[in-house]
Every structure is written in structure tokens, then in C-alpha cells.
């Protein structure tokens, strides 16, 4: 019993150490460079012997660390919280709709897709998922949950600004499209960063004043323009 607990503790320690090396405040390695000997040393072991009692191969370990990190991703709801605090918590101080879009997208796509390091972990798992149904299921459930939360929030934003989705679109299609833009732009930014380097200056301010936009923000605004219109019918009042 005591030996089993020790193995479990060792396992937790090595997973936490690997997760920190991969996606902590100052990531030290990326997935392909996560070496079990190195992780063991960081965790205070002199050799990787204990680790190999738990995982047969380095690959088994890497996948488990990735999953460990993945479980932390849905916990990052800061973009949702930020948007909710602007739109839902203080409806009397609403910015213009254009200003809202500009503001919440100005930091670019990677901030929107949580964090670039975590997104790298996500993509690594995404490439591994076809051969691992359990992993694919975990990814799927986490994604459905977070995109659903965004869809719910976007519906509240529509209400706050007296807007509606143009049929046949709905909040789920919209949230999925914004998620796709966010993810695709994060990949693009990692491949050709110079395209994203400079802010775009557009005359969107009061009286045509020039304001800075991110490319991500411009794309999100394009999607909103295509999916959304002013409400044509009064909002339904639920029957009492």
C-alpha cells in the first residue's frame, strides 16, 4: 500500500514537473524535447529509473503530460470573464459595439486562444488524437464545453446591443467560426509573424479618428458584419 502511494506521488511529481517545463510561467521545452531523464533531474531524482517504472516509454510519458496540461486549458476563462464583465455586469456603461470588438481583440489571436504555449500543447494532442479515442474524447468534450460557454456569452452580447443573428446563423455557428479564426490565426502567427507585427490603423474612432486594430480583430469584425444585424423583432419576453 505504501509502495503504491509512493509510485502515485512520484507519478504526480513527474507529471507536474513536465507540465511546468512545458507550459509553466517560463516554459523551458516544447513537446518533442520533453526528455524523461531531464524531467527526472528537474524533479530531484538522480536518474530516470523511477520514471521508467511508471511509463514504459518516453512517448507514453509525453502523452500523459500533454493531457495533464490540457486539463488546465478549460480552466483559463479569462477572455470570457473579461467580455462578460464589460457587457453583462455593467450594462449602463457599454462601449460602442465597434469599440468592444476592437478592445477585446487588440492583443491578437494567441491571447484569445488562451496562450500560445498551451495552444502548442493542444495542437500536439490534436495531431495525436486520431490514434487515441480516449484522448480524442477528452479534447472533444473540453472544446465543446468552452465553445458552448462562448456561444452563451455571445448570445448575451447580442441581447445587450439589441442585435440578432441573421438566419440561418446561430450563436453556435458564430462561436465555432470565431474559434476557428482564433486558432488558425495563432498558427499563422507562429509561421509568418511579420504579417501580424504591425497594428492596422483604421478610421473607426469618433469622427473618423484613426484607431489601432489587430488583424484578428479585423477578421472578427468581418465575421460579425456577415452574421449579425440589428434586431428586427422585439426580444421575446418569457411567459410568467
Amino acid at each position, binding site marked *: 500500500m505504501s509502495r503504491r502511494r509512493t509510485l502515485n506521488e512520484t507519478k504526480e511529481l513527474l507529471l507536474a514537473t513536465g507540465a511546468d517545463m512545458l507550459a509553466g510561467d517560463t516554459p523551458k521545452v*516544447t513537446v518533442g524535447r520533453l526528455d524523461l531523464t531531464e524531467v527526472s533531474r528537474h524533479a530531484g531524482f538522480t536518474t530516470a529509473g523511477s520514471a521508467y517504472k511508471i511509463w514504459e516509454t518516453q512517448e507514453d510519458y509525453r502523452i500523459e503530460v500533454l493531457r495533464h496540461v490540457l486539463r488546465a486549458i478549460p480552466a483559463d476563462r479569462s477572455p470570457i470573464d473579461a467580455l462578460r464583465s464589460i457587457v453583462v455586469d455593467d450594462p449602463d456603461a457599454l462601449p460602442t459595439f465597434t469599440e468592444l470588438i476592437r478592445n477585446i481583440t487588440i492583443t491578437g489571436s494567441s491571447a484569445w486562444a488562451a496562450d500560445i504555449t498551451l495552444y502548442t500543447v493542444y495542437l500536439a494532442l*490534436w*495531431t495525436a488524437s486520431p490514434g487515441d479515442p480516449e484522448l480524442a474524447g477528452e479534447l472533444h468534450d473540453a472544446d465543446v464545453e468552452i465553445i458552448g460557454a462562448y456561444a452563451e456569452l455571445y448570445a448575451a452580447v447580442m441581447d445587450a446591443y439589441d442585435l440578432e443573428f441573421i438566419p440561418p446563423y446561430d450563436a453556435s455557428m458564430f462561436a465555432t467560426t470565431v474559434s476557428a479564426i482564433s486558432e*488558425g490565426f495563432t498558427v499563422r502567427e507562429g*509561421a509568418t509573424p511579420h504579417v501580424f507585427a504591425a497594428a492596422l490603423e483604421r478610421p473607426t474612432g469618433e469622427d473618423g479618428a484613426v484607431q489601432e486594430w489587430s488583424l484578428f480583430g*479585423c477578421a472578427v469584425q468581418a465575421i460579425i458584419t*456577415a452574421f449579425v444585424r440589428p434586431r428586427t423583432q422585439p426580444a421575446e419576453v418569457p411567459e410568467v
Partner: protein
Amino acid sequence: MASRRSLDTTRELLLDAGRDLLIANGIHVGMDDINLIDVCRNAGLKTAGSGYKIWPNQDEFRADLVTYLMEHATASFATIDDIDATIARRPLPPLGELIRTAARANEELNTSTYPLYVVLWLSAQSDASLGAVFREQDEKWLAVMAEFFAHILDVYDLELVPPFTIDQFATAISGLVEGFTIRRRATPELVPDEVLRPTGPDGTLQSWTLYAIGVEAIFAAFTRRRGSSST
């Protein structure tokens, strides 16, 4: 000459074996675990000697493999050729119809080639020298896409709304298809196979993908009729 052809053949054999090994290992690990000795063994060669005649070291082999895979991962060149042929015909199809049909074809191609691209992207994040090779190839790809979209804008008498550049326009559309490729595999039920819109003749319903709708939205926001001052 015979000897050179033989080296070229061996190079291709080993690069193909490298790709196969990458996929067999579980491509999430990227390029780090791919070494020339395993690749030669996988290709049926007894030793790595032939490999080292082509590449002096592992790093050069991996860099060459990235270039080779990037060239093969860009299968959507086929879509570009199809679209070029379509817009060379007269009468010119309406832009909406071109977007609707081309976007679906592009999405289908991307589904098969994209996971390999993501592996290379992941490797580029972790390895500075591979990253440099990868980015050089991606720059070439961006240049091709920019030229392609500039041609479409010309044919349809459109121009970019300032301050957008053709690189940003091409990047926005590429980002969109990549994001939808990720979404379709991870959460297929959130990406409908078709969205019916009354865009056909006399308002008949036509089948669109969310990606095609997104591309149409990017066109609407980033471009305008040439010479006009608004979209």
C-alpha cells in the same frame, strides 16, 4: 550521371521513409525523434552510410525533410490551378459562386494534408534551425497565395481596402481554413456539413460551408470595387 540519379533516388526514398517514420512514431512528437539511422533501417538499407553520403549530419537531414514535407504538404496548389482555370473562362462566374465552390474543395484537400503541416509547425516552435527552414518555406507559400489572391482581385475588378495588404488578406483566408480544419476534426458536430443560404438564382437555397461563409465575409470587409472609396 547514373551515380547522381542514384543519389537522387536514394534521397527521395529516405525522405519518404522519414515521413513514414514520423507518422508511425505518432506525429505529435515532431521531428526530434527522427534520426537518419532509423530512417535508413526503415527504408530497408542495412547501414546509414548511403544516408550520410547525402546529408553530412542529422540536422541537415531534418532540414531537408522539412523542406520536402512542406513542398508535399501544400497540396492545395491543385485548388489554385482549378480556380485559375475557372476564372480564365467567360462568362466569369459570380464571385460568391467561386468562393462557395472553391472553399469546399480547398477544405477537403486541407483535411488530408494539414496534420503533417501542424507537425512541422510544432517542430519549428521547438527547434531554431528547423524553424528557420520552415519559415522560409512558409514565406514562399505566402508569396504564392498573395499572388493568387491578387490575381483574383484583378479579375473581379476589386482592390484592397486600406490599410490591408495582400499578405494580410491571404493570411486571413489561410488562417480561416486552418482553424476550420482543426475544428472539424476536434468537434465535428459544431461544424455543419452545409449551411443553406438563399444565394442561388431567384433566391434558391445553396449549400455553403462555414469556412466559405467566412471567406465571403473576409472578401466583403477587406476588398472593394476598384476605384470606389467604400466597400
